[in-house]
Structure formats: structure tokens, C-alpha cells
């Protein structure tokens, strides 16, 4: 029974992290592009808003999301009216929470990459007859690749490691919202230390591998630039 629940938690964690990473890249890339290029006065407030999850305690973020997504919250009412039910304590709710929570980790590396590129490559593409959207996909994205990879790795690992948001909006429902971090918490509460040890060690090894991968990507990108 215990092995089964560990496997379930690991699978769920990987599903959550993969889906969140995919959504993160799709959402963070246009935000990063806008932040890197806009002269607008809204740039600073938006940048601060995007960075907010970095400094807020995860429980605060989780609490607000819980209230928003709950049956009496505006988002909860909307999803219920659309026939989607209430998102709190569901996997979908967890994905939404994770994406918001990890947004700054994805936006910042991509934004740095776009900023480092400068306006010249896009100008060159335009003089060669590329429409702005074409130039974005054929020039800006390939040149920002190291930033995109860093964002994906950071977003993925940050989602794997999150706990507070998950606990607040997901509860700890096996197969639905119980991920590795909450599973460890459950083991400790139940005084099952040896299982807690195994899972914790797994997280340490995983985190080390991620950081190692990141630094080797950075040094390779550094050689290229």
C-alpha cells in the first residue's frame, strides 16, 4: 500500500510539473518579451506583479487562490457557471496555482535573454522581409534558447519542490492532489520516518541534478555568446 502511494505521488508530481512547465513557457514568453521591449509606464508595476510570488510566503498565495477558486470566490463562481465545478482541491486547481507560483522563475531568464539580444536581430530580420511574428519565431526565440531552457528547468524543479501552495489549494488527496512534498509531510505526521527518508533523499538527488544541469547549460551558453 505504501509503495503504491509513493508511486502515485511521484507520478502525479511529474504530471503536475510537466503540464505546469509547458503552460509556464507559453505564458511567460510573451510576458518576458513585453517586459524586455516595452517603453510603457506599466512596465514596472507589471514586473513587480510578476515577481510577487517570489517573495510572498507560499501559504499566502495559496490562501488567496483557495478563496478565489472556492465555491464563493469569483473564479469559483465562474467555473461553476461554466459547468466546470469548483477547482479547489482538484488537479486543475493545482496546475493553476503552480503556474502562478513559478511564473517569476520562468519570466526572468527569458526576459534576460531577450534583453541581451537587443533590438538589432529583429531589425535585421525586418530588413530581410520578415513580418514581426515571423521574425519572433525565426530569430528571437532561437536566439533566446538558453533562457528558455533555464526557464523550463527552473519552472519544472520549482513546481516539483512546492509545498505550501499545494497544501492550501490541493489538500492532500491521494491520486488527485497528493504530490511528493505533501506525501513526505504525511509520512512525518504519521511518524513513518524511513519512508520520509527515502522520498526526501530522492528530492535531494533530483534537486542536485537539476542545478548541475542548469550550470552546464549556462557555461555552454556563455561559450556561445
Amino acid at each position: 500500500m505504501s509503495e503504491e502511494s509513493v508511486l502515485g505521488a511521484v507520478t502525479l508530481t511529474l504530471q503536475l510539473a510537466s503540464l505546469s512547465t509547458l503552460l509556464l513557457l507559453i505564458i511567460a514568453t510573451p510576458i518576458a518579451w513585453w517586459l524586455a521591449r516595452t517603453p510603457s509606464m506599466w512596465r514596472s508595476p507589471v514586473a513587480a506583479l510578476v515577481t510577487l510570488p517570489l517573495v510572498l510566503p507560499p501559504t499566502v498565495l495559496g490562501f488567496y487562490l483557495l478563496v478565489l477558486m472556492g465555491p464563493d470566490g469569483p473564479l469559483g463562481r465562474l467555473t461553476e457557471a461554466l459547468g466546470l465545478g469548483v477547482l479547489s482541491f482538484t488537479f486543475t486547481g493545482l496546475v493553476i496555482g503552480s503556474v502562478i507560483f513559478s511564473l517569476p522563475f520562468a519570466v526572468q531568464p527569458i526576459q534576460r535573454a531577450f534583453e541581451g539580444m537587443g533590438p538589432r536581430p529583429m531589425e535585421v530580420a525586418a530588413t530581410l522581409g520578415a513580418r514581426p511574428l515571423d521574425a519572433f519565431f525565426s530569430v528571437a526565440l532561437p536566439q533566446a534558447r538558453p533562457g528558455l531552457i533555464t526557464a523550463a528547468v527552473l519552472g519544472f524543479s520549482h513546481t516539483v519542490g512546492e509545498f505550501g501552495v499545494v497544501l492550501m489549494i490541493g489538500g492532500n488527496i491521494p491520486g488527485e492532489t497528493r504530490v511528493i512534498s505533501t506525501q513526505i509531510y504525511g509520512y512525518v505526521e504519521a511518524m513513518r520516518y524511513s519512508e520520509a527518508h527515502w522520498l526526501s533523499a530522492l528530492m535531494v538527488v533530483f534537486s542536485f541534478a537539476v542545478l548541475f544541469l542548469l550550470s552546464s547549460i549556462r557555461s555552454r551558453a556563455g561559450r556561445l555568446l
Partner: protein
Amino acid sequence: MTRSANGGLSLQLRLERESFTFDIEVALPARGISCVFGASGSGKTTLLRCVAGLETEAEGRVSLGETVWQDSARRWLVPTWQRRLGYIFQEASLFEHLDVQGNLDYGLRRSNAPADAATLAAAIELLGIGSLLRRRPEGLSGGERQRVAIARALASQPRLLLLDEPLASLDAARRRDILPWLERLRDEIALPMLYVTHSMEEVARLADHLLVLENGRVKASGPAGEVLASVENPSIVGEEAGVLLSGQIALRDELWQLSRVDFPGGSLWVRDQGWQAGQMVRLRVLARDVSLAVSEPRDSSIQNQLRAVITAVIADDHPSQVLVRLDCSGSALLARVTRRALQALSLAPGTAVWALVKSVAVIG
């Protein structure tokens, strides 16, 4: 409003910057190389960026032939990617994520004209980059990068080629490598070029038309030979004031290793550099290499002596000197002499003189 008669580039532009006002109105010919010359900060690059549509805050009118690219009065602005132009930036601007072939294909695939593999092949051949196609940009020298960038621009079949100091980031040796390629470009394809530079050497070698900018305004514009010879603007080029002459190799003297170049106003002997008789060449004669005599000098070591009449005398940069403009049977010459010599020889407009040409640069 400026309109060019023969399908050339017509500009009327205004752009306000914090410490700089750019305000020009000029028409440039549809053929050959128009050099845009001026000190840094004179607005050369701004002009190029306005023509390319990269300076969206500029107000005014830009048209090439019948095609209007910008007309602020009618709120009309064709975006850069629809203008069919090539832009060579000062520093290497190849896409680092593509190899040389990928860079060349990028422009070819997006050209509004029907994609034409022969155009690309011709550009590769013209710029001599056939052996570089599989290389990555980071492995190329500065000169090779610029040649690839030029070929990439040509492959997109532009109607106008804009070059922003394409040689400035290169050392003298690389510059000498690229200049012949640019001359080939000028001579072999009928593509009008706008060439920004602050180098008199490049102007002398390349310019058909010369546009001089100063503090964001047009100081002079016209055929290169005329602008350079006009004494109204001696300070444009300072030390390097001089004239451009077009001539033809008339004969070669193999005993003394000299060639005679005939030009409309006479002929000059230059060092033989293996030309063929009949070949057209450009001559550059600097004002500081021309001295004047009121009677025919029979015992001078300077063998190039031309009969001329003084048409104007104008103040030079330094108060001790003047620039004397001469009419040499229809060709203009400039001579730089001291005010003391001017007085001692009683030189004035109308005086017939002998111009002694100490040195002539032959530029391709």
C-alpha cells in the same frame, strides 16, 4: 516638395531628439552609389534608419521612384519588412543561430520577389563566399561576416541597398579586402546604394553622388566630383580637400613605368600599375598636392603641369592658407596655397596659372 525626376530616392524628413534635430530634404539618384558623408553625430545613420523605416518617430515623406514608403501627412507608413531593401549594419549582424547558408536562405525565402536560386548563386559568386557556406558566423573573420551580410541582403533582391559604415569595424587590411567587392557590386549590378561613411578614402573610391550632412542638416548634395571640387565647402573634408577626375589610360611608357591618363582638362602621368590602354580610372588630386606658378616652370621636378585659370579663392581651415579653385579646360582643380604666396604672386580670380600636380592617387 522634392521629387526626383528619374525614379530616385526622395526624402523629406524631420526627427526631434533631446540634443539633436534631424531635418533634411534631398533627392538622390536611382543609380550608382550615393555616399552619405559627415562627422559622427551628423545624422548619417539616422538618415539610413529613416529610409529603412526603423525610425518610426520620424515625420515626413520617403519615396523610391513611384513607391511612397512614408507620408506622414497622409498617415502612410510602409513597414520595414515590406520595403524590399537591404541593410548592411556597421557591426556584423548575422544570425548566430544559423550557419552561413541558413543566413543566406533567410533573406531569399522571404523576398517578395519570386524566390530565385540564381540570384543567390550570383550573390555568392559576386562576394566570393562559396567556401564558407557550412561555417557558423562565430567562426568567420570580420571581413567574411560583412561579405556574407552583403550577399544575404542581395539574395532578398532589394530595390535599394543601405550600407551603414560597413567597413568601420574592420582593420585597414580587411578594409582593402572588401573595397574591391563593393566596387564590383557598383559596376556589375544596377542596384542603387546609399553608403554611409566618414572616410574620404571610401568616398573617393565609391561615390557617384555625394550627400554631406552636418548637425542633422544637408550641407551639400550633388555628383561627387562637383561637391568635392566646390570651394563653398572646403571644411567638409578638411585636410583632405581635393577633386575627383574621371579619365582614361591613354598610353603606357614601359621605359619609365608610367601611364598617361587623359581627362577632359588635360592629361596626367601616373605610376604604371598594369592597366590596359583605354581603361577608365578615377583620379584623386588633393589640394595640398597642387602648387601654382604664374609662368611655365621649365626646371621643376614636377612633370605634371596643367594650364588653368583661377575661378575663386576661399578661406581655408587655417587662416594662413587659402583654397584656390581652378578651371582646367572644363575640369575643376583645387590648390592649397598660403596667403603670403597668394599676395606675392598677385593671384586672383581670372589669373592664368600653371598648376603643378605633385601627386595623383589612382583609385580603380
